[in-house]
């Protein structure tokens, strides 16, 4: 492993999606590089299927989802 | 000084900070005076806009942040400003708009007329709103009323229109301004200045909730009642023993006065009733007058607009005749005198 790859060890990150703000536009899902966001079958109060994080530790906290989210519904945490 | 320049000088002395204009005869001297004198004053702005529409919206912007702001134009230009005036009225923003009327409709003539009375007093823009409308009839009054306009606008947070005409604007008369220009132009209390030290505010009327807008209308109309009670002004001339009273305003009143003096010399008992605030229209004093005067002649330089307010005020308490010359034709005192004397004899007023 070159030096660069080793420094890319697991950068832990996570996101918090406000399920009530989400309007199910699925943009975060289509742009997430790790594909760790899915659309829930359940509906929020407004009747939208909301997005949620599949918590398998893959999220790197890159914030792309928050960047594209029109509803400012996603908060991003990172180590 | 000519009327147009007198308005400009009076506005500067009233603490005007921003003037936005656009060329149109017969009020260009006003715009040019502002270019010469306002632009150079510290903190003040003279700007010739790309259109009358832009000019009124610039006034809206300047008034938002508390500056005394003004625009001037003539009939066709004033038509372009109507939407802006409606927004000013809706957002309770003071402003002064000067209309030096010219013959209409259409491009019209560049000579003086009074054909915008309805537009001014009923409001040419959309929605239930009013603007205070002042009708000066001399260069001195142009100056006094400009200053009064700014004070009224700020006091009631309402656009005020000065309804002059081409003759008033071009004619020269001595004028005393009674006020010196302030060194620093005033800024209105409570203007929008960026949310420093307070929550952000919004100036708007758009709403998806009709009852919210209804409340705005009700509150505006409560203010209009107050204005009507406090600010209605009018003027009379030899009406004490008059049997025939001419009702007119502005330059037409000067013409009528000339005729009245001539006829009085011949022993006819004629007088003049001159509304000064065209809105609010002085109806009660006219009703008062109709207790002993039964014959009224409404004389206007249009096809008959103020006559409707006169008829509303009198409500049948007296006979109302009309004499009008539209299109920018300027009647002479003799002409009006002949109409009055013929009416005087026809109605059997000769004792």
């Amino acid at each position: 492993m070159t030096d660069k790859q080793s420094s890319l060890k697991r950068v832990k990150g996570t996101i918090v999606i406000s399920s009530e703000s989400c309007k199910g536009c699925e943009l975060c899902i289509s742009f997430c590089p790790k594909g760790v966001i899915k659309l829930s079958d359940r509906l929020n109060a407004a009747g939208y299927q909301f997005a949620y994080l599949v918590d398998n530790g893959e999220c790197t906290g890159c914030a792309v989802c928050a960047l594209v989210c029109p509803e400012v519904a996603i908060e991003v945490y990172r180590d | 000084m000519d009327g147009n320049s007198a308005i400009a000088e009076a506005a500067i002395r009233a603490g005007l900070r921003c003037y936005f204009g656009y060329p149109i005869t017969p009020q260009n001297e006003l715009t040019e005076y502002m270019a010469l004198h306002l632009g150079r004053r510290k903190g003040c702005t003279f700007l010739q806009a790309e259109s009358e529409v832009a000019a009124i919206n610039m006034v809206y912007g300047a008034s938002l942040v508390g500056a005394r702001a003004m625009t001037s134009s003539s009939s066709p230009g004033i038509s372009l400003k109507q939407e802006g005036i409606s927004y000013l009225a809706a957002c309770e923003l003071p402003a002064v708009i000067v209309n030096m009327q010219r013959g209409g409709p259409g491009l019209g003539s560049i000579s003086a007329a009074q054909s915008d009375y309805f537009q001014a007093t009923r409001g040419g823009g959309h929605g239930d709103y009013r603007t205070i409308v002042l009708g000066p009839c001399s260069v001195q009054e142009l100056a006094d009323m400009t200053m009064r306009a700014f004070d009224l606008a700020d006091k009631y947070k309402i656009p005020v229109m000065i309804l002059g005409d081409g003759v008033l604007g071009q004619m020269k008369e001595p004028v005393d301004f009674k006020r010196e220009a302030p060194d620093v132009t005033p800024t209105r209390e409570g203007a929008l200045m960026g949310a420093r030290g307070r929550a952000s505010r919004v100036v708007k009327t758009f709403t998806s909730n009709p009852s919210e807008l209804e409340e705005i209308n009700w509150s505006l109309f409560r203010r209009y009642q107050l204005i009507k009670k406090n600010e209605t002004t009018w003027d009379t001339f030899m009406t004490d023993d008059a049997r025939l009273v001419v009702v007119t305003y502005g330059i037409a009143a000067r013409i009528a006065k000339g005729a009245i003096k001539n006829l009085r010399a011949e022993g006819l008992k004629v007088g003049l009733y001159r509304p000064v605030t065209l809105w609010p229209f002085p109806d009660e004093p006219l009703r008062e007058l109709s207790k002993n005067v039964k014959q009224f002649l409404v004389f206007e330089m249009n096809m008959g607009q103020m006559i409707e307010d006169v008829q509303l005020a009198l409500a049948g308490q007296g006979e109302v005749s009309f004499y009008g010359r539209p299109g920018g034709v300027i009647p002479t005192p003799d002409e009006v005198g002949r109409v009055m004397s013929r009416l005087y004899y026809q109605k059997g007023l000769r004792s």
Partner: protein
Amino acid sequence: MKLIYSRPKSLKKAAFHYCPGCGHSVAHRVVCEVIDEMELQDKTIGIPPPGCSVFAYNYFDVDMAESAHGRGAAVATGIKRACPQIIVFTYQGDGDLAGIGTAETIHAANRGENITTIFINNAVYGMTGGQMAPTTLCGMKTTTTPYGRDHVIEGYPLRMSEMLAPLDGVAYIERVAISSPAGIRRMKKAVAKAFQTQIDNRGFSMVEILSPCPTNWKMTPAQSWKWVGEEMTQVFPLGVYKDVMEPKHAD
């Protein structure tokens, strides 16, 4: 773990009324992020136009004042001339800026007014239900061009950035697109540069933002973003069209 991304301070907590995937929402957030970072919140006045974004005053936590349709540039001129120390930005749609307000926009730019214009170009009149706008693409279906815009009848889409750039009063114009994370980052830099242009009194600044309108384009949000990136950029090429600070083209 540290919180590294959250709602900008100057963006009110109110939920957006915008449709799912709408570009306005993203543009609002980015402008507010810039207002936060440049600490402009207490000396800024924003001017929303009639249009979908007329409700911007429910979201921007700065002083806001409504303007008549198309007159934002004139209102901003009035404000800036009366109070030069206030930071003014107009937030206008394509119908507002390139349709009814073309004259006000061109002349404000030509006078070099020190104002910043956020120009949302989504090629339709959104609020009123998706009619043709001055920037509607040829062949594009809207409620008033049901068979697709035909240049023989309705003419061509209007390129405002290219039109305003040559004016001497213009200091900075860039066209960006809400079509990808990179596009949004680029937009934020452009908006920041535009406000900086105003702060430095260099003249007129505008950011033209190609923006998705899923509802009126009858697409899913993801499709509409892709359409912005692939189709709109053909007719409205991205890039810096004027920058008096760095006259060389492209950044």
